[in-house]
C-alpha cells in the first residue's frame, strides 16, 4: 500500500513538473475557442508550388495579408515577423512558416512578391493568384481591403492587418492584431511550438 502511495506521489510530482506554468499558456494574441481548422488556401506560391496550408502541417504558420507596394503596414509586419524568427533561434524558427497572401493580385506577380518578401526573410512564402482566388482567401479569413486612389493616378490599398497563428495540426488558434512587437510573437510561438 505504502509503495502504491509513493508511486502515485512520484507520478503526480512528475506530472506537475512536466506541466508548464499556467501563465505561460496565456497567449498575447487573441484566442479563438473552440479551435477550428484554419480555412484552406488555394493559391500559387512564390516558391513555384501550389500554396495550401496542408503543405505546412507540423509547423506553426503565421498567416497575413498585404501587398508588395504597401509603404506603411506591410513592411512593419514583415520586419516584425522576421525579427521574431531570428529571436527564436535557428532550430525553433525552422518550425515556423510565414505565409503572406497578396490583396493586390492585379500588380503582385509571384516574382514581385518573392522579391518583396525576400528582403525581409528568404523563407517567407507568398501567395498569389487570380482576383477570384484572392477574394475567396480573403473572405474565408474575414479580410477586408479597399483601393484608395492616389493623386498621381496610382492606388494604394487599405487592408486588414492582423496575423493569424495556425498550430502544427492546422488549427486556427489565435489572431495577433497589428502593432505587437516581435517579443510578443516569440512568446506565443514558443507556446504553440510546444504543442
Amino acid at each position, binding site marked *: 500500500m505504502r509503495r502504491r502511495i509513493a508511486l502515485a506521489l512520484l507520478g503526480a510530482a512528475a506530472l506537475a513538473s512536466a506541466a508548464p506554468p499556467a501563465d505561460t499558456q496565456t497567449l498575447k494574441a487573441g484566442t479563438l475557442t473552440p479551435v477550428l481548422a484554419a480555412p484552406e488556401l488555394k493559391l500559387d506560391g512564390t516558391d513555384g508550388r501550389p500554396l495550401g496550408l496542408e503543405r505546412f502541417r507540423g509547423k506553426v504558420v503565421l498567416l497575413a495579408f498585404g501587398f508588395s507596394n504597401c509603404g506603411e503596414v506591410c513592411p512593419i509586419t514583415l520586419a516584425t515577423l522576421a525579427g521574431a524568427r531570428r529571436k527564436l533561434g535557428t532550430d525553433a524558427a525552422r518550425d515556423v512558416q510565414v505565409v503572406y497572401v497578396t490583396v493586390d493580385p492585379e500588380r503582385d506577380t509571384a516574382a514581385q512578391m518573392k522579391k518583396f518578401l525576400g528582403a525581409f526573410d528568404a523563407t517567407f512564402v507568398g501567395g498569389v493568384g487570380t482576383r477570384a482566388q484572392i477574394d475567396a482567401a480573403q473572405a474565408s479569413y474575414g479580410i477586408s481591403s479597399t483601393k484608395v486612389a492616389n493623386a498621381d493616378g496610382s492606388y494604394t490599398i487599405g487592408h486588414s492587418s492582423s496575423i*493569424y497563428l495556425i498550430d502544427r495540426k492546422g488549427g486556427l488558434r489565435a*489572431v495577433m492584431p497589428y502593432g505587437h512587437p516581435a517579443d510578443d510573437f516569440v512568446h506565443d510561438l514558443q507556446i504553440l511550438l510546444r504543442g
Partner: protein
Amino acid sequence: MSRRGWILLAALAIVLAALGWAGFAPVEATTHEQAFDIPKGTWARRRAGDLVEILPDRIRLTLGLNDVLLIRNHDDVPQVFGPTIMMPGQSFRLPFERAASYQFVCSAHASGQLTIDVEPRPETPWARIHWRARHFLENLER
C-alpha cells in the same frame, strides 16, 4: 452648535469618508473579462432592415482590471470582429497590455466600426475616484 450645524458636519464627514475610501481603497475586479454576446439571429435581423446594435460603438477597458475583451458569436453566420472572423459558436478572447485607443472593423455593428479605449490602471486617488464614479454611472445605465 445648532442641530442644523451638526447635521451639516455629519454630512460633510460622510462625504469625506466616501471620497477617502474611493480615492485610497485599492481598485479590484472580479474578472478581467468584459464579455459581449452576438445573439442568434443578428445577421437575419440586420438583413431584414433592423438596425440592431449588439455592441456599443465604444468600449472602455482598464489595464489590470478589465483588460480582456471576450466576444461570443451565438449567431448562425460567421461574424467579423476586429482582427478576426468568428465562426458560429466561436468565442474570441482578446487581451490588452498597452493603454491606447484601438479601431476595429466589426460586422456586428451597423456602422461597421468599433473603438476600444484601453486606459491605464487608476493609481492616484483622483484617478480611482474618477474610475469608480464612471463605473457607478455606467452600471446605473445598464
